[in-house]
């Protein structure tokens, strides 16, 4: 990812660092499949803090809004969450594709407030990886193809020194939704 300048291990490690620092817990107690809420007692404010720390590490912008919010904004209120705050069939179909086997508890009628409990260190790392994979081939400033990284985290242009311009997490989520819906016509 990040055109092979950043390793999967580095991403997982950085997410663990962010979680440990935010929640003031020992990094050694955190596993890739640790649920942030169930196992580590995180709350919604903590997620944003964790995101912020990851952003500082890699020079990226994580999604500010969860995928369910994007669905409702794009395909209308009620398309993902019913009036009682429960997941619709279409939302479940989509979340299964999005989160895969990392979200075994998600089913029709699951309360939307219980979804963040499904998020793990790995699912956050996946989000980071998607953003890092959006690194353009060439520097947007000078057009050179010389990405470098001194710390294995922040990428910059080896020619002009411009920091890498990644797509932000929200835009990636919207792009992904549009593409998936064009293929599968879920909404």
């Amino acid at each position, binding site marked *: 990812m990040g055109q092979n300048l950043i390793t999967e291990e580095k991403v997982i490690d950085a997410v663990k660092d962010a979680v440990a620092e935010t929640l003031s817990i020992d990094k050694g107690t955190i596993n890739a499949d640790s649920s942030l809420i169930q196992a580590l007692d995180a709350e919604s404010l903590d997620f944003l*803090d964790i995101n912020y720390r990851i952003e500082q590490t890699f020079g990226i912008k994580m999604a500010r809004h969860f995928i369910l*919010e994007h669905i409702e*904004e794009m395909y209308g209120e009620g398309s993902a969450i019913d009036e009682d705050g429960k997941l619709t069939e279409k939302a479940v179909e989509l979340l299964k594709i999005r989160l895969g086997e990392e979200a075994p508890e998600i089913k029709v009628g699951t309360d939307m407030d219980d979804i963040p409990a499904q998020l793990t260190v790995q699912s956050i790392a996946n989000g980071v990886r998607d953003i890092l994979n959006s690194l353009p081939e060439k520097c947007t400033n000078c057009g050179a193809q010389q990405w470098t990284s001194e710390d294995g985290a922040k990428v910059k242009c080896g020619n002009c020194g411009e920091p890498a311009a990644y797509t932000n997490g929200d835009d990636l989520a919207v792009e992904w939704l549009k593409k998936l819906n064009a293929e599968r016509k879920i909404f």
Partner: protein
Amino acid sequence: MESAIFKDRAVLVTGSSRGIGAAVARKFARAGANVALNYRKEGGSSEKKALELRDEIEKMGRRCVALKADISKKAEVKELVAGAVEALGGLDILILNAARSPFKPIERLLERELKQLVETNYMGNIFCIQEALPALTESKGQIIFISSLGSKFYNPSYPLGSMKAAMEAVVRDCAESLRPKGIRVNGVCGGIVRTDALKTLRQFWEELDQMPEEVFIEPDEIADAVLFLCSPAASGILGQSIVLDKGMSLSLFRSPGKK
């Protein structure tokens, strides 16, 4: 403001597991008051922090209780106030601090988010006032609302500001309507306060990180103003939401990072 001028006073602070609420609760306890803390959700870090704060306040020799309640639910507010009155033997001061809001522009709010915004930050605070009224009438007590500059100025992706503005109007309204009962109502309107919520705000307001240190307010400074407003020294202040922003709102232009 840390002499025991609030000795044996009973104070309820909504949303007090962290940030401004926790700072206010701690400061009241140091000034001699017994405190009822409040958090919204069971089993999360808020509950953990509220229980830690309860232990800390008890070690000061004060009575303290941590009560779970979502202020947007009237029945839970009823239990919260009853629990506080029972544990502390009455209620002298109600601090309306709890708040909950999505961070996105108003035009993008979904109906559900809009409802939650109003139910917690407007209706929830009014439920608290209504339920606390009998006890506050008996004690001729006080209500302080914790507002923010979003009530007066634009902040990016901060719909909570409109609720803060509504509540500042409620402060003015109740100051007058509760005057015959001997209850004093005021507000404290904070600028950029260094709390956990600031970490959220800076994700939507990138210039925040470039703001000069001198304009940041500490939660303890908000707490000092709250204690002042509740003290006899502030008996002449009624229906005001006092701005604490280190002068940030005085200037139309502030060059980022420069003095």
